[in-house]
């Protein structure tokens, strides 16, 4: 069977700097792949190249065997591939519910049927369930901007799941989230993964989080893959330790 | 050929004025994101300060000093403290509206307090016409060119060669960092407003003998300043100067050789072209955007 996501020989330069250097990896159906690495090791750039926010200078990205390099983010998203961003990216002036509906609506019918169709594009229920699932019910009609950081992080993740994706790329979902919230988030992600058989790729610094969540880990340093394996092996891989401590 | 040179020369003289106005305009934008729709009126008004001073019996030189002082006070300090400061935190648009209202305010004030009629204005230099290569240029235009260029050069030196200037630039490029470096950001911003006021006053003194002093004059000048600033580069002093010259010359050439009814159109087309293909302006730096 083909990999859900296949990245081959991907490179991205900014002027002189090489942010991503000839990276190749595959993501198998249903796994949770963690990508770790010190700051500036090119993790986020890698995501941006995979999802079309940036166009790679070299290499190729395939989703279900279909080449997506050069496609616009919105078209890639329509292949049921969604993501979150490292920095918070919710829509503060929309209510929690609207944020979720928005996240799903573009997958309902065409632009014009949406214009004449129902206000919630028929997603009211799905949004409600998602709100339930992430336990945001009491905030459903608050402006997202009024939520606490951790709550917004939850919403951010929830939005990524709204369109029922089969591949989700999460960029530091745990970043800046306090411990209560962290456990909560991890447990929700696992629950979703179990329930929907979705495939995750997670960038994370918070080691505990990665080790607890991921089935396989990829280590990036200076834009290159320096190690790959189960959380268990990665932990005692000298290259990895060097990469972290060396900096 | 002679006529071509003539066009270039007059174009340069006009362009120098535009440059002066545009420079102040870009300064305000860089340090405080102020898009000043009253910039044209800022140039129109000082002439009337001076006329009033002379009317009250001050000699020309003194009147000029008074005019500059009043400009610094009113269209520099007062503008910054009363209009810009309360709005800064509210983003660009409300401030834009305020400056639009301000321009109406200034026009109407001048019209009501002084006169709706155009006023003659004493020249700095006796208008002697000098001939060369068949082209004529009056000493006035030369003075304009000289003063404008030296003012801009002085500003350039201030910004790049002095400590004060460098801290102003730092403020312009990254206020947060500047603050960390212990630069008194607010005062730096204030300085740019004062400098702008002085530049406007100078421009006013330079052009009024040729353009005459009239309450409505600011409208054309203001737009010209926008065009010059954008074409040259919104975030570069020398860009604005460059833009000013281009604009002045272009206006003359298009009026002479292309179409007089559409003379106003060509600078606009250039503007659009520049924005579409080189948004940072012909000499401008790229403003780095974060994804």
């Amino acid at each position, binding site marked *: 069977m083909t990999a859900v996501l296949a990245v081959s020989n991907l490179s991205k330069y900014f002027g002189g700097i090489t942010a991503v250097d000839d990276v190749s990896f595959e993501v198998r159906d249903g796994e949770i792949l963690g990508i770790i690495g010190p700051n500036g090791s090119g993790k986020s750039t890698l995501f941006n190249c995979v999802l079309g*926010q940036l166009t790679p200078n070299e290499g190729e990205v395939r989703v279900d065997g279909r080449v997506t390099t050069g496609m*616009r*983010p*919105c078209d890639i*998203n*329509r292949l049921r591939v*969604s*993501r979150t*961003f490292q920095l918070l*990216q919710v*829509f503060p*002036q*929309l209510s929690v519910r*609207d944020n979720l*509906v*928005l*996240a799903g*609506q*573009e997958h*309902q019918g065409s*632009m014009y049927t*949406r*214009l004449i*169709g129902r*206000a919630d*594009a028929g997603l009211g229920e799905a949004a409600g369930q998602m709100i339930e699932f992430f336990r945001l019910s*009491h*905030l459903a009609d608050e402006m997202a901007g*009024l*939520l606490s950081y951790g*709550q917004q992080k939850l919403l951010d993740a929830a939005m990524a799941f709204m*369109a029922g994706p089969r591949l989700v790329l999460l960029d530091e979902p745990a970043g800046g989230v*306090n411990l*209560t919230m962290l456990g909560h988030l991890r447990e929700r992600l696992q629950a979703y993964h179990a329930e929907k058989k979705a495939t995750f790729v997670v960038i994370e610094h918070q080691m505990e989080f990665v080790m607890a969540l991921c089935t396989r880990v990829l280590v990036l340093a200076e834009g290159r893959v320096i190690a790959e394996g189960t959380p268990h092996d990665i932990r005692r891989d000298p290259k990895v330790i060097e990469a972290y401590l060396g900096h | 050929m002679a006529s071509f040179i003539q066009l270039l020369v007059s174009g340069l003289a006009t362009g120098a004025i535009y440059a002066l106005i545009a420079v102040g305009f870009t300064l305000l934008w860089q340090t405080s994101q102020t*898009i000043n729709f009253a910039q044209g009126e800022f140039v129109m008004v000082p002439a009337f300060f001076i006329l009033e001073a002379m009317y009250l019996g001050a000699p020309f030189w003194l009147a000029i000093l008074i005019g500059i002082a009043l400009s610094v006070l009113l269209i520099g300090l007062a503008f910054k403290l009363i*209009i810009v400061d*309360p*709005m800064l935190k509210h983003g*660009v*648009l*409300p*401030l834009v*509206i*305020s400056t*639009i*209202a*301000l321009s109406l*305010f200034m026009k*109407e*004030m001048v019209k009501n307090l002084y006169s709706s009629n155009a006023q003659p204005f004493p020249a700095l230099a006796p208008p002697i016409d000098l001939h060369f290569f068949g082209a004529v240029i009056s000493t006035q235009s030369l003075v304009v060119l000289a003063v404008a260029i030296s003012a801009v050069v002085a500003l350039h030196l201030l910004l790049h060669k002095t400590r004060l200037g460098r801290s102003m630039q730092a403020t312009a490029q990254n206020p947060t960092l500047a603050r960390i470096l212990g630069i008194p950001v607010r005062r730096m911003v204030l300085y740019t407003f004062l400098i702008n006021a002085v530049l406007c006053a100078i421009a006013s003194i330079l052009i009024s003998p040729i353009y005459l002093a009239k309450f409505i004059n600011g409208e054309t000048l203001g*737009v010209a300043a*926008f065009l010059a600033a954008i074409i040259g580069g919104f975030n570069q002093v020398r860009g604005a100067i460059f833009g000013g010259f281009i604009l002045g010359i272009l206006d003359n050439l298009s009026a002479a050789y292309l179409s007089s*009814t*559409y003379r106003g*159109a060509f600078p*606009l087309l250039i503007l*659009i072209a520049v*924005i*579409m293909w080189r*948004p940072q302006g012909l000499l401008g730096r790229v403003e780095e955007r974060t994804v």
Partner: protein
Amino acid sequence: MKRLAVIAVAVGAAFAIVVPLFLKPYGIYLSSTWAVLTIAAMGLNLTLGYAGQVSLAQGAFVGIGAYTTALLMHAGVPYPIAFIAAGLVCFSIGWVLGYPALRVQHHYLAFVTLAFTTLVFLVLRNEEWLTGGTYGLSGIPRPVLFGWSTNGPVRFYYFSLGVLTVLATGTWWMLRSPWGRAFIALRENPIRALSLGLDTRRYTLMAFAIGSSIGGLSGAVFAPLVQYIEPLSFALNLSLNLLLMVIVGGSGYFFGPFIGALVAVLLPEWLRFIEGYYLVFYAVMVMVMMAFCPTGILGLVERIVKAVSVKRSPPQPALQPEGTSP
């Protein structure tokens, strides 16, 4: 909050309907002017307030709409068709003008549209064979709709009010549909919107095209209102005024333009008793307004209502620390 809004709108609507009964022809003419400008500002509010695309071209579109209508009517085309044509012409031109917005934003976009406005003015003034140049176009008839003549101040006021109502309803429908959400997303965070499958390109162009076509339609009412059009009426000044209406009324609030237009039309009128200095006072009041309610009058109203309701009801859960969330 919501109930209050509904009441306010209802009262406002009732007011708009009965107002001509108390006014002399001049007052009614002003009210019609208000309706026309509200339509135009409503279009701009869509482009600027919701989709966040700064445009200084709305006045130009009012002009294009007005000229299209006038020319077609002079050519003997029935008004309804001319009206629709005005909308379509502006829609397509607006669509094209949207392309720069895909490349540049904020003040750059503002200046592109500013340039466009001035170019339109030059064309209207210079192409005499078509637009009548500086002579303008006079003798534009008040339309007759299904045997009902809109001639006479009151009739025409109700006609423009009707157009306003229809267009407002349409706009409202669009804004409550997924499109409205998409426009706001566009304004707040295009990158994230893109990653959620929003075709930001398409929505940006749409925001421009629809906003412009609404501007054109207001022009289609403006022409028979004044019954004479000249290029100067559609120069940069109008665009700046419309921008002022949107911001003063409350950009991004559905009823912002209604209030903004009210201020822009009635305030100067109301100040005329000051004679010579009335525009000065007007300018000052606008500056004060911007300093004290930069989010516009409706923004202020909302703040006040919120403040009151918060005093009454206990603090929102959202404001509590997250730890306490179940």
